[in-house]
């Protein structure tokens, strides 16, 4: 058994993508998410003994949100520019057409998420995108289960309202401004 198979490395391989995606939806550009995810992992792997089974994602989410907040405070968070790079390697088999569609979808999503209150956004991302259970969401956000359920409903309403507004804004573009 070499160094690449130790528990810390396994932990990274198992959870890095989750942390990275969360950081992306918390507003970080892909290369910034690379760095921040690594920092999350450096912190988390030092505390592997404290992470109970089934609680890894909750723990990682909390660490990621601390680190993302710090990144944003430190860097004055950049808005995603329309030409954000989507590395072809992260979408195996991606032809330019598909990449373009994916990129546009992510831009729209991030535009909506951007405006949401933090607590609603967190619940939404964890449940609707990352597929955590309601119980896991509650654990990650350190709220009671009932609060998690109501927060998820409010998050959807908020998201839908903003998405609708975005769509209206698109159609009105160039008309009334």
């Amino acid at each position, binding site marked *: 058994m070499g160094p690449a198979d*130790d528990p810390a490395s396994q932990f990274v391989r198992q959870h890095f993508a989750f942390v990275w995606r969360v950081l992306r939806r918390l507003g970080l550009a892909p290369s910034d998410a690379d760095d921040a995810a690594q920092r999350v992992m450096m912190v988390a792997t030092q505390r592997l003994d404290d992470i109970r089974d089934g609680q890894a994602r909750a723990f990682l989410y909390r660490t990621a949100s601390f680190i993302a907040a710090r990144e944003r405070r430190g860097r004055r968070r950049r808005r995603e520019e329309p030409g954000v790079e989507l590395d072809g390697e992260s979408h195996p088999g991606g032809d330019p057409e598909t990449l373009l569609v994916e990129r546009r979808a992510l831009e729209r999503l991030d535009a909506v998420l951007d405006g949401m209150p933090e607590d609603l956004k967190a619940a939404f991302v964890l*449940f609707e995108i990352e597929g955590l259970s309601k119980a896991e969401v509650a654990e990650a956000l350190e709220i009671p289960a009932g609060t998690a359920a109501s927060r998820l409903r409010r998050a959807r309403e908020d998201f839908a309202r903003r998405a609708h507004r975005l769509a209206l804004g698109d159609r009105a573009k160039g008309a009334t401004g």
Partner: protein
Amino acid sequence: MTDIEPWIEGDAPADVVEWLGAARRESPRDDVVERCAMLVAAGGVGLAAAVSKPLAGGSGLAGSSTAALSLLKWGAGGLLAGTLVVSGARVAGVTTGPSDRGAPASSLSVSVEVAPPRAPAPAPMAREAVPPVPEETAPPLAKAKASPARAATESGHPHASPDERLAEELALIDRVRASVDAHQPALAGRLLTEHEARFGKSAQCAPEARYLRVEVMLATGRMDEVRRLAREILDHDPSGPHAARARALLKESDPEGELRR
């Protein structure tokens, strides 16, 4: 209580379904993941000191550790296949293997400053070695890997890397939170004082600490402090996660102070 199913399986609008799908499909590059896996394997404590600066720092920071870190960022898409051996403070260079993508291996220099090499010791042996082996003869790696969190916390040494300090700080904040949940405001208050002493007012978790202090003040009925801290929260972080509660607390609180928890 009615349960809630993911929206994407229900009546989410078509474009939302598309967006969520794209978000689920987006993923980091394999070499980025693998590099991180190798970095944590090569040893947490000392390496954290070396790589605690962002990899993508394009702003040209001076310093040998940063110069070496730029080597770690593989623009050519090569994979860090060799063992990463580092000194306590500096990475002077890295050993590399050939890229598994078939691109020619980058020709990096291989001069390395080495303090006790950490990478080769396998983890299971390190973890088992600690109890029976006398303190003096236990290899440093065994102790560090067996309880890295405790070692970092007990070290308290001023040269801990930012990531180590963040880990310590998060651990302390977790303890504060646990004591608040356990209705032990006195303990929580002491831990918060410790937090401020060790990490200062501009600590990374200062907003979280401030919010937890509000909870402690609420529990001990110190409404003047509750109001003061709530105002501080709104001053520092008006759009943050605790702002809504801070506003609610200020709105609800009055001289007679009947607050719902």
